């Protein structure tokens, strides 16, 4: 592999992560509480939060992409984001952590 191929913009975070999609939701977002501070948008390592019309919005397919780090939950100060874990046996799979 040459240097060019290893450049970070070519590191595809999604291709490099393995996730068993959770059969049900584990992040709960209450748009009424969101103040649009965008903490979650800044912090998410997978860019799963976007700001639309002054409020955060979670990607619909987050269960296939979320690394369960919980940083959105910590970053949110308005209590709009609630995080639990995906059901046992599902979610992110680390083989080389």
């Amino acid at each position: 592999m040459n240097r060019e191929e290893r450049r970070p913009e070519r590191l595809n975070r999604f291709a490099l992560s393995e996730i068993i999609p959770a059969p049900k939701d584990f992040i709960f977002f209450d748009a009424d509480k969101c103040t649009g501070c965008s903490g979650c948008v800044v912090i998410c390592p997978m860019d799963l939060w976007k700001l639309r019309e002054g409020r955060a919005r979670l990607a619909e397919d987050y269960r296939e992409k979320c690394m369960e780090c919980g940083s959105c939950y910590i970053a949110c100060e308005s209590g709009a984001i609630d995080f639990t874990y995906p059901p046992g046996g599902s979610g992110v799979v680390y083989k080389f952590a």
Partner: protein
Amino acid sequence: MESYDLIVVGAGPGGSVAAMTAAEQGLKTLVLERANYPGEKNASGFALSSKGERDFPFLKEVEFPSMRVGRRTQAHFLSPPPEMEERFSMVTTTSRRISYPEGRDYFVKTMYRPELDRYLAERAVQKGAELKLKTLVTGMVWEAGKVCGVRAEGGEEYRAPVVIGADGVMSMTARMAGLREKFGRDEVVSLCTVDYAVPKERADAVIHENCFQTYFAPGFGGLYLIVMADGVHVGGPGVTNSLISRAVRKRVNPAREVLEMINCPPIQRQLTALDARPREWQAHMLPWMDQFNRRIYTGGFMLVGDAAGVPEPLWAEGVWQAMYSGRLAAQVAQEALQEGDTSATSLERYCDRLEQSPVGQEFIAGVQLRQLFEMLGDPVIFDEACDLLVDLSNNMLWNCQEPKAVSINRLFPILFENLPLLMGMLRVYAPILLETGGENLRKRLEMIKGVAAMVSQMTGGEVEA
């Protein structure tokens, strides 16, 4: 409903050590783990310091396929972006003054966490603990104001007079036990890692024992490059940008920062030399408390490991701390069960002992040292510090550009010019010295006075004491 003496939630190093300790003491122990195998989930420790073998001698016998012994460590200081080339780098071995033999022998053994976690969980099972995988705990069972069991997602109840929460930084058991809703934005860092596959012969040839390397650049936090037997972790960002509150304030996305910094030429050269191929992307959080967390117990319940916020406050090392706290919690559980009192008052001794233990001791100097590192987060101070290191080494030894006498005469002006920086460092070190070794400090100062008088005599009064 099944009954046990002790239930442990989470089969990471903290949970498994708690379980093996309890099972060894004859307690009927259950471990609940949400993953398909121990180490599959939010595990981020990639190295076990020599403290592990000191305190858990059984680890001496263990060889994991991914294990590499780190007898050297290297720090690389880089120039500002966009160049980001090496300005100063230093390799060090362990200090001969370290107080125990394993610590003199090596810094860390690097390894993949699934190997370590599986081994520890299997050992807990061998000692008699029961391990249930793919089981997420969703509730606590309470009785007379005390935790007396847990409820799994399927509704099953497991009862025990003591429950240990070892479920990591995003501890749901801490929340369910009412100890905290979540860690604060100033108490947690976000870390992202790229794992690369590396041919073992290449890693042996290029890295050998220098498998714990850090890269610092002004304005960036920093990156670590950790080499296992046949893999590399490049991750970060370090101190300055990874605290959630700071990342949000500076609007720095930790993932993008890591991906950008991996691009710097020195890291790329290492990866090229290692023939490294990207294999896995990881993102997780670590607790990074600035004081010892005392909200780690309540009636019938104790927190261990990351869930308790025990990682050391400078480097955020946490695997040994998790194991240490896990063992202590299991010992306290055993005592409390024998006394027939598992109330919060009875379990408070866990917190007291942990605070007095080496785990708690880490917090004394760690927080102040962290401030020193945070000073380096300022691009100007970082640059000054690099200048100092480069000036000293170039003018003391490596100068081939000018007559040696000229460069050696520069040493005093260099030190003088850097007084503000050195004073800044003193501000960090003096309080630690005074708190932990004031007597020692006074002795050394007396010695310096004696030496100064001698120097004065030897130079015939040319240098005044």
